[in-house]
């Protein structure tokens, strides 16, 4: 088995899940994205592997088309992607230092491609401009030093509304924040083809982002969506991947430096075998209990067993939208009581346990061992002529911090990554935008 130049690996044994290890294959590397594709694993002893080499696609090998609903290869793809994207740019094994700067934190934010009239998105790798509201922050110079010192993420995090829903408010009354970043193949595709203006979108043909291909070894378009909570009373920063970032409130035009903890993480990867993309979603293990399964005395980021003792019972209904108006600046807002509606698949949980153990073997204090795979949605029949969604499995998938209010299995409102993003369009004539909503937010006319 071969690894790319900077690959690192750490192995543990887990016979229950590694028998399908040979299903994930990748080759070559993409230097522009500082992501290295992976030349393995080829046999059962090769994983879990903590390598910065990113998987390119899922291959089904001699076994042919997998049994319907067999998600092991896709879950492995998800974990390999998670490890690769969260690895340090310096090549250190993930979590060796407990926490680390991540590869994806250097990607471009979605709003960097959403320019105004007459502007062109900056070349890949251009640092983000600090918003005016943040420059005006009292002591901003100190904030800059803090960012430079931690070097976890030089971020401006502002969004708080979830997709098709409202905000998630934590137990301290703080809003969870979200950011969307894209990798170089996706960013350059938008920039090079002029898809950052409505005129450019109209003039362009079918939007078809690059797909990761085992034939070429090239990594395709990748989007990540991160959910962050402001770390405050009751939170243990040593259990989170943390980032010191400017937190912007657009409504009030304010900005504040905050220490954030990663609580949710989507990875969406376009591959040749999955033109509907592969949708991987991870969470912090302390987020929320399964419905009705809260551990007595257990601490959760978004669930309080004593909720009714400190806020109205009506606000303790699980997964209920908070009262309006939604404004992070409003004092005394009630937290959202979160429960996981659909339990994580046992096979997925077993794979997570295997990777968590590998991470602890590297460093018992690795923050990355506190994250778990919720699931992976993928197209089972990508070319089904009756279904452009490609018969996704599982039919529904939700992250308690990103689709808090859309959990469940009710069509068409419950969360399904592919079903939702299949509706994404760009331009006034609603041209399908290849499973991204970023292009639906293009406002520049020309």
């Amino acid at each position, binding site marked *: 088995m071969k690894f790319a130049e900077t690959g690192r690996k750490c192995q543990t044994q887990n016979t229950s899940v590694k028998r399908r290890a040979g299903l994930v294959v990748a080759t070559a590397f993409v230097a522009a994205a500082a992501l290295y594709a992976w030349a393995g694993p080829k046999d059962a002893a090769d994983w879990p592997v903590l390598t910065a080499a990113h998987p390119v696609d899922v291959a089904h090998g001699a076994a042919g088309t997998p049994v*319907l*609903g067999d998600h092991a290869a896709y879950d492995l793809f998800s974990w390999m992607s998670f490890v690769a994207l969260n690895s340090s740019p310096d090549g250190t094994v993930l979590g060796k230092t407990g926490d680390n700067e991540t590869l994806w934190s250097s990607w471009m934010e979605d709003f960097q491609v959403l320019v105004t009239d007459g502007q062109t998105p900056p070349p890949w790798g251009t640092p983000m401009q600090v918003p005016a509201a943040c420059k005006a922050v009292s002591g901003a110079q100190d904030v800059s030093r803090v960012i430079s010192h931690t070097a976890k993420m030089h971020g401006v995090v502002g969004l708080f509304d979830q997709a098709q829903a409202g905000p998630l408010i934590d137990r301290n009354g703080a809003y969870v924040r979200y950011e969307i970043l894209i990798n170089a193949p996706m960013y350059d595709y938008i920039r090079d083809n002029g898809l950052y203006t409505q005129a450019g979108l109209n003039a362009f043909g079918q939007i078809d982002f690059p797909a990761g291909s085992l034939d070429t070894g090239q990594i395709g378009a990748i989007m990540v969506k991160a959910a962050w909570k402001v770390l405050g009373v009751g939170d243990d920063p040593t259990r989170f991947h943390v980032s010191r970032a400017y937190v912007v409130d657009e409504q009030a035009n304010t900005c504040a430096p905050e220490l954030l903890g990663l609580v949710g993480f989507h990875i969406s990867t376009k591959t040749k075998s999955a033109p509907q993309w592969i949708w991987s979603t991870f969470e912090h293990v302390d987020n929320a209990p399964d419905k009705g399964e809260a551990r007595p005395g257990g601490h959760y980021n978004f669930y309080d067993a004593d909720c009714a003792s400190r806020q109205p019972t009506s606000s303790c209904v699980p997964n209920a939208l908070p009262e309006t108006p939604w404004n992070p600046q409003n004092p005394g807002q009630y937290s959202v009581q979160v429960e996981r509606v659909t339990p994580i698949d046992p096979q997925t949980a077993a794979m997570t346990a295997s990777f968590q153990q590998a991470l602890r073997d590297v460093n018992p204090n690795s923050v990355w061992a506190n994250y778990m795979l919720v699931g992976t949605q993928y197209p089972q029949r990508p070319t089904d002529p*009756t279904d452009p969604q490609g018969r996704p*499995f599982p*039919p529904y998938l939700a992250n308690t911090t990103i689709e808090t209010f859309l959990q469940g299995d009710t069509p*068409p409102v419950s969360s399904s990554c592919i*079903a939702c993003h299949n509706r994404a369009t760009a331009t006034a004539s*609603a041209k*399908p935008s290849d499973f991204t909503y970023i292009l639906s937010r293009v406002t520049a006319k020309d």
Partner: protein
Amino acid sequence: MSIQPPSAFFDLSALLTGFTVQTLEFAQQSADFFGVFDEIYGSGHMAKLLSVYDAHVQAGDAPNDIGKAILDAGSPVEDTARALMAFWYLGQVAPLNDPENLQIPSGNHYAQALVWRAVQAHPTGVSTQQFGYWANPPAPLNDYL
């Protein structure tokens, strides 16, 4: 969590409905047609139907002969088979002893009902198509089976 149906359930359902086993398996992933039928129609009837089907298979009967035999078997096997066909096609089922009490057990049973595929369309309110699909003719019927 629903129980994984036996393969005979899909084989028999394919025979009765004219759809492929894979199409039925996709539907079962979203809506539990197997377990819910047993729950609402009445426990044990499905097992009896499957045992009759299995006996025909073991005897080496041709598929069309098996289907005809089952649909001519009289009550309760014939009734169960027809109720199962209706459940697959319409997503609705009634208890054997309360036939007026038709139920659509879930939104997924409604959405996955085969009638939509039989007419090359999608259920009202639930579509897997992309924006603008209505400008093009649907895929051939065979692709929906």
